[in-house]
């Protein structure tokens, strides 16, 4: 039990950015656009927030609002950058996977290029966010220890976004339209919905969330922008599929990745885990994902028209 309480905050810290990015991917794919550029959009968010926070921290050392400004800038930068993908895949009917790859490449190269012009090494260091206990709630036994002690404020922000997103997708008019565009855009169009507009919104939301995810990594556990997020964007896409394009499924999938990765990372210092070969622990999440993909393949809940460009006159 102590072990679990020890590693849980780390697992959560790893899960949260993955969760928000996968949620972003959910909006994009539900609208019918595959966004494999999540990785690049995360990098853009990380860069934008690193730049903002490092500049602001020079003049306002130790102030908490600086970090929130950084997160906001990351959201805007991610949304703005995702327009490149939206334009290519919605207006120009480009292959969405290729466009996404191009987004990843541009983001990775451009941010490092700009960072080098600014700092020389291409890395930008910032002072991250402090962990804190939530008052009263942290006194609850076990649950308080697991969730309310040593938690980042961004964790609560992301969980709030998760709840709001679930509500939006299933209970609002916009959510219904979003899902309709991903399932059968011709019917949505016939019903008077502007498919292009909905898809643009889907992609922009995915950009904003990915940007936020990249920035959260920066202000929580990494503390430094290095021009890469080490494949987390792709892992988020896997979590999206693993979670069967449903918000709660995504929460479960990302939590699984978070716990599995953290266990693998700390296995050497925990006696009961040290006996298992570290390689096996490292491979565990990826192998399980492959197995899960096989199991779910028969009953895939993927939006029917995801990845297919919508052309008005086409039947």
């Amino acid at each position: 039990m102590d072990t679990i309480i020890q590693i849980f905050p780390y697992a959560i810290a790893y899960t949260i950015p993955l969760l928000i990015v996968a949620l972003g991917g959910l909006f994009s794919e539900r609208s019918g656009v595959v966004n494999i550029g999540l990785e690049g959009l995360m990098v853009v968010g990380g860069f934008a927030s690193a730049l903002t926070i490092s500049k602001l921290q020079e003049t306002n050392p130790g102030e908490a609002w600086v970090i929130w400004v950084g997160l906001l800038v990351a959201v805007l930068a991610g949304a703005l950058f995702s327009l490149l993908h939206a334009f290519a895949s919605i207006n120009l009917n480009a292959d969405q996977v290729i466009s996404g790859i191009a987004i990843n490449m541009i983001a990775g190269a451009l941010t490092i290029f700009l960072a080098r012009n600014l700092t020389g090494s291409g890395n930008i260091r910032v002072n991250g966010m402090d962990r804190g206990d939530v008052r009263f709630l942290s006194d609850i036994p076990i649950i308080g220890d697991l969730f309310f002690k040593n938690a980042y404020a961004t964790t609560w922000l992301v969980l709030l976004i998760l709840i709001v997103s679930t509500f939006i997708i299933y209970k609002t008019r916009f959510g219904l339209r979003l899902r309709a565009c991903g399932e059968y855009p011709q019917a949505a169009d016939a019903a008077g919905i502007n498919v292009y507009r909905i898809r643009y919104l889907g992609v922009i939301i995915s950009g904003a969330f990915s940007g936020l995810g990249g920035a959260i990594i920066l202000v929580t556990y990494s503390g430094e922008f290095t021009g890469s997020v080490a494949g987390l964007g792709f892992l988020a896409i896997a979590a999206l599929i693993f979670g069967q394009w449903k918000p709660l499924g995504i929460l479960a999938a990302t939590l699984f990745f978070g716990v599995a990765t953290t266990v693998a990372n700390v296995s050497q210092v925990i006696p009961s885990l040290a006996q298992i070969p570290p390689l096996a622990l490292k491979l565990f999440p990826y192998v399980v994902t492959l197995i899960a993909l096989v199991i779910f393949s028969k009953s895939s809940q993927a939006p029917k028209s995801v990845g297919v460009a919508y052309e008005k006159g086409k039947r």
Partner: protein
Amino acid sequence: MKKDGFISLIAILLGLIAGAILIAATGNDPIEGFTYLFQGGLQNAERIGNTLATATPLILAGLSVAFAFRTGLFNIGAAGQMLFGGFCATAVGLTLVDLPSIVIVPLMVIVGFLAGALWAFIPGLLKAKFNVHEVVSTIMMNWIAYWTIYYLVPQYFKGNTETESKNLPDSATLKMHWLSDLFGGSYINFGLFIAAIMVIVIAFIINRTVLGYELKAVGYNRSAAEYAGISVNRNVILSMMISGGLAGLAGVVQFAGNASTIQIGILPSVGFDGIAVALLGMNTPIGVFFSAIFFGLLYSGKGFMSAMTAIPPEIADVIIAIIIYFAATSVLIKKVMDYFGKKRKYRKEAVESNVGEKVK
């Protein structure tokens, strides 16, 4: 196809222009930057040799991605296949050190190919039998390769530092002294010939064999191919395996040709650049060959450029990325071309009709 080639050239031009704008925007001189960039890749025999050597794994990785593309598969896992193929070849080279070069090098090449093919067989099988999307499964395979090599190299082939394997002896690499000497001491090696041979072999397979015909048929329309009696599942698996094998070869030429050790803790970026090479080369073997050499030129020239100017070397990656974006959105270029094409045609028609009236 000719039109597609023209679009690739326009994409390159637009990418270079965008790069120039970026250089200028960060307060440097674009003309000076590009001069050094191309000088760095072409100035003398050694630099040309290095450009070709840099292009070698890119050719093979590009072929790998392009081959899968022709069957409608997106092999994003070339990096993992490269790593695993390169690792297995390195393992053979380090274990069977005593064998003569003429035996061990071909063995390493074959093992590299087979290991890459094996690594791609799994996503191919999952795609064929369970319809698991190959983009996700190959990404998972990339990370499985990454961690496998991360633990196996230090355990069995630990080199001078924690993060690399032992050095392969020269007899177990693709290095050729006469070739290096010919190019002024460059690290160009036999891998270039392997790549060139594979370009011809793959072009032959795609264009001149029943296998190539079936693979393309599956790529164009799976249902129609199935209806025509072509086994889609068999072709999907086979295409992935050949694609993976080519990526494995890219690993061999990278880790036992251009370098003589294998690094842990990185997925080789060449694997991802292969996607860009394939796209720019329009998924044809010959197109892949030339686009890989162009990318090799940018990559080998960027170090010289950043040494001579204040421009960061990543400008080369930015240019490549922008080229790929323009190649992906080639519809736009096509539309513009058609627009001007039509305009010219109308003008011509107008002129001709005027001429006609005058004759009357």
